[in-house]
């Protein structure tokens, strides 16, 4: 950045400040530009989003920008709206007001084809796993590939590798009902990442499992983040968030009274 009047660029296109018709070196302008870039470049951008059930507002004028490659925790008490927020991002719900932007696309009025296209860039780990009961663990994990028209036999090695990565090799042929909660959670994570999505949403991924398994799942998510995936984890487990500090530089947001606030050292 350079001072106003000292711009060395010969043409406005060579200077972002002049291009935007802003004078240089003012903090207000830096904020304007940063805010603009954050919104435009964010994987997830929510602007003044509101949503409610039966007339009761769960989310109220909520803003959120999640940059690509970041790791975010979303916390708050039960019923604060964490799952609702994830569902809005995953296009399960439509906001009552405001704008939900995914990968720079406004999702307002998105038709089925656009929703499917956007969802294919997202891997989601549901709170209740949502594995398909009559399919084996391996077939569940491979399902997103099938939905994209891939021939299963051509991806046998990929699935095998992923099953191994989540530590379910011995359970690959088992049906979901034969798995423990932790195993189901890991299968759900594997299914979420089999297509190498850009964004991973995880809803209470350690909700029903012991601390050791929780750490194992956290490490998996951190590893995905290191691979360049944007990760957003909704959890009420503050221990998990504290444990993550040593593994990843994560930003923690707290849902409170329908709005998001940056969580601090109180965690």
């Amino acid at each position: 950045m350079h001072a106003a009047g000292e711009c060395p660029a010969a043409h406005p296109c060579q200077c972002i400040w002049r291009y935007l018709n802003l004078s240089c070196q003012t903090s207000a302008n830096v904020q304007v530009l940063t805010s603009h870039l954050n919104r435009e470049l964010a994987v997830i951008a929510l602007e003044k989003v509101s949503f409610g059930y039966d007339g009761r507002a769960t989310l109220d004028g909520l803003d959120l920008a999640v940059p690509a490659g970041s790791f975010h925790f979303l916390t708050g008490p039960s019923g604060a709206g964490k799952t609702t927020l994830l569902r809005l991002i995953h296009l399960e719900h439509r906001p009552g007001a405001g704008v939900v932007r995914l990968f720079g696309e406004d999702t307002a009025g998105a038709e089925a084809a656009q929703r499917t296209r956007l969802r294919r860039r997202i891997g989601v780990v549901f709170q209740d796993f949502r594995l398909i009961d009559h399919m084996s663990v391996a077939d569940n994990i491979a399902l997103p590939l099938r939905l994209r028209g891939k021939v299963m036999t051509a991806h046998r090695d990929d699935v095998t590798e992923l099953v191994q990565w989540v530590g379910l090799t011995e359970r690959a042929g088992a049906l979901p009902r034969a798995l423990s909660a932790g195993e189901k959670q890991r299968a759900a994570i594997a299914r979420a990442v089999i297509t190498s999505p850009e964004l991973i949403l995880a809803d209470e991924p350690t909700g029903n499992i012991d601390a050791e398994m929780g750490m194992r799942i956290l490490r998996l998510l951190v590893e995905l983040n290191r691979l360049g995936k944007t990760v957003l984890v909704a959890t009420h487990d503050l221990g998990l968030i504290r444990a993550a500090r040593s593994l990843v530089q994560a930003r923690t947001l707290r849902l409170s009274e329908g709005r998001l606030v940056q969580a601090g050292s109180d965690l």
Partner: protein
Amino acid sequence: MSAPGPAAEAHRPAAGGILARRPEGPPIVPPSGWAAWLTTLTAAAMAFLAVLTLAAGLVAGSLAEEWRADLAEVATLRLPAGTDPATLGAVLDQLRATPGIAAARTLDRAEQAALLEPWLGRGAALDDLPLPVLVDLRLTGAGPDVATLEANLALAAPGAVYDDHAGVRAPLGRAADEVRRLALAGALLVVLAAAGMVALAARASLAANAEIVRVIRLIGGEDAFITRAFVGRVVRRTALGAVVGAALGAAALAALPAPGAQTALAVALLPGPGGLAALAAGVAVGLVGVGWLAARVTLRLTLSAME
């Protein structure tokens, strides 16, 4: 934790492989219980009925055609009993010279006895009866000019009556046509009922697996994929029932007694084995096609409503 059931076990991968053996993966729609086979059973019953109904329509159509042909090609001249041979000879000569008449032949005593046998019984003493002289006429084209013929006959053989059987056979032909139309309408109703049954089955299957549909959508599945999976399941069951039912229908018709002296005319008019096979194949293909369309439309509409 309960052990997996046998239906689920069938979809487990082979011991040497991590995925199900099929290149396209295991079925998206889970195995269902015995109630799902009602679709197959109903389709079989529909196909069976459709084959019988269409066969009845075909027979009625053949009868109608036969009667029409008879009506167009045959007539009878009735001369009073006791007509002398000279008059008869003159009438025959006149008839043979008339345009539209290809042949004229007097029915002999035995043929007349055969005609009267249903009413008088075998071996009736016909010599004591004042039987008219009957002349069998074979017609060509539109037949003779009846007014001119009757005027000429009135001079040559007073009391002669020309009968083209129209009064008897035309209503029979119309009745056969009606039967054929009714049979086709019946077959159409059977097909429509099958379409309704398939649509209901598809809808029920979708409702029973709503959670799977929801998950598939959420992990990036298109409605076209879901539709294909559910249509495939319902249509496979319908197809199995349609093939079995149509084959049974054709077999039942083929098993009717072979045409003979004691066999009804209708049986003689049934299509041969090749025709019955074609009829059964047509019914099966028709039911599967209609079922496919009904399932596809129903699923698309239902999925749209589930948005």
